[in-house]
């Protein structure tokens, strides 16, 4: 198991290597990358900040949960902080397992839980020079956070 909050570019190969073993037949890697357009606005970059000590702790807990779910210790995640350009990788999750179903499930679990529980925030920088803190959207599975927050956008 491996989890880290980093301030340097993420190397997806090194994340894969952390989980690869001869007993595993399947590796699932998820990469989150900075999109050039979000909610119709052209983005030039994103700045990630965190409640760093808690983020590291929650991330580590999520990896332990995913490992228990998959019955495998071969779960790794890295989240990057700081200024990222369009196309750069903000998060990488890798899970290896003898069988692919478990690898897919555990990788999905890590990214969904990360997005709901890890105290990390991002501020998008737009072409017009403005910047704005991003609220979670319901494009994927963030409804949970909106509900907990008692508000929603």
């Amino acid at each position, binding site marked *: 198991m491996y989890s880290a909050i980093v301030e340097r570019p993420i190397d997806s190969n090194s994340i894969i290597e952390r989980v690869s073993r001869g007993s595993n037949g399947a590796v699932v890697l998820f990469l989150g990358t900075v999109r050039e357009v979000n909610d119709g606005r052209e983005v030039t970059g994103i700045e990630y900040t965190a409640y760093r000590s808690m983020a590291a702790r929650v991330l580590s807990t999520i990896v332990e949960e995913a490992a228990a779910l998959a019955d495998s210790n071969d779960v790794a995640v890295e989240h990057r902080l700081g200024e990222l350009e369009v196309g750069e990788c903000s998060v990488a999750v890798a899970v290896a397992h003898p069988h692919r179903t478990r690898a897919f499930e555990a990788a999905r679990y890590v990214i969904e839980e990360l997005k709901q529980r*890890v*105290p990390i925030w991002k501020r998008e920088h737009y072409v017009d020079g403005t910047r704005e803190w991003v*609220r979670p959207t319901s494009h994927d599975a963030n409804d949970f956070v*909106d509900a907990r927050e*008692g508000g929603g956008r």
Partner: protein
Amino acid sequence: MTVTVLLFASYADAVGRSEIEIDVEFGATVKDVIEHVRKLGDATRLPEAPMVAVNEQYASRDHELRAGDEVALIPPVAGG
């Protein structure tokens, strides 16, 4: 007693600070700290019921605080 309040992202912007030491009554709860902080900043930008972590663990509004606790007001998280 004194607790440390941590503010992040949009909440730090709303209050203009990222860390505050505040004095609260013995037996104060998370709710009391939130009310205190909302008076310091632009309350319209600080919700009445934000997510809160006490000593790095998510906590409910009626969680009772102890001296020295680190109370973090957590804006909607947006990692990934």
